[in-house]
């Protein structure tokens, strides 16, 4: 089953992915800062991910891959 993989260093923390996940499992990690100075997004519960790729489709920075 495909799952979403977030590239935290590419992410700019915009939060768009969060708004489209049907499973509500995407969230910005406020605790973390990547090298560019952003709070990156990530999946809170990867098991729930259905690999729909919505998050990837809206990500302006191609920070998300969806793969097996």
């Amino acid at each position, binding site marked *: 089953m495909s799952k979403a993989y977030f590239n935290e260093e590419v992410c700019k923390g*915009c*939060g*768009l992915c969060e708004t489209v996940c049907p499973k509500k499992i995407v969230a910005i990690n406020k605790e973390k800062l990547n090298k560019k100075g952003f709070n990156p997004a990530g999946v809170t519960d990867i098991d729930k991910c259905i*690999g729909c790729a919505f998050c990837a*489709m*809206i990500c*302006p*920075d191609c920070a998300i*891959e969806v793969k097996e």
Partner: protein
Amino acid sequence: MATFKRPHSLTDITLHYCPGCNHGIVHRLVAETIDELGIEGTTVGVAPVGCAVFAYNYFECDMQEAAHGRAPAVATGIKRVNPDNVVFTYQGDGDLAAIGTAETVHAAARGENITVIFINNAIYGMTGGQMAPTTLPGQVTQTSPYGRDVQTQGYPLKICEMLSTLDGVALAERCAVNNIKNITETKKAIKKAFQNQIDKKGFSIIEVLSTCPTNWGLSPVEALKWLEENMIPYYPLGVYKDKDGDK
């Protein structure tokens, strides 16, 4: 269930756009289209002057950087030299609808066989948020600090509506990338606009309503909401002209 990865026609250079800026989404859709149509080797893109000026860094094909507003003229030059190339421009609303109005209208009237991707974010992003021709009535920008006053600053220009009166236009469609459904529609529209060119149908323009969180002074998520609530009602999505009649 799907798989998803960065399209090949998008270079791996990090996009310079602000967080949440819709330019990035549209870049990806264009790159996917180039991949899917298998035209990477014959495509030549034209970057505008605007936030997308660096588009020449991002598309994995030959690129030219045009003077502000002149992308359709530059594309015309390229296309006339190599008619078998697929030539597209990628332009903002200041670029296409203000300084480049004449070049836009005449490339359209000529039915120049090119594809135009038009990012309407109702503002001049690159220069720090001035009023664009597409800025909404009442919208506050750096150069409409009291809100755009249509009495003195004029009415927004509706590009698809205007261009669809021209005989040379094969396709004029307005889209948005604010949600998955619209992203899917936009992708289809962009693909059709490229396919039209391959089929020698003439001038195709896809207008994409987009956010500029930075200059709108909103978070990326708020910006999408503002777009939904303000821009889409003013600039209705849909096909304004399709020479084929089918969509």
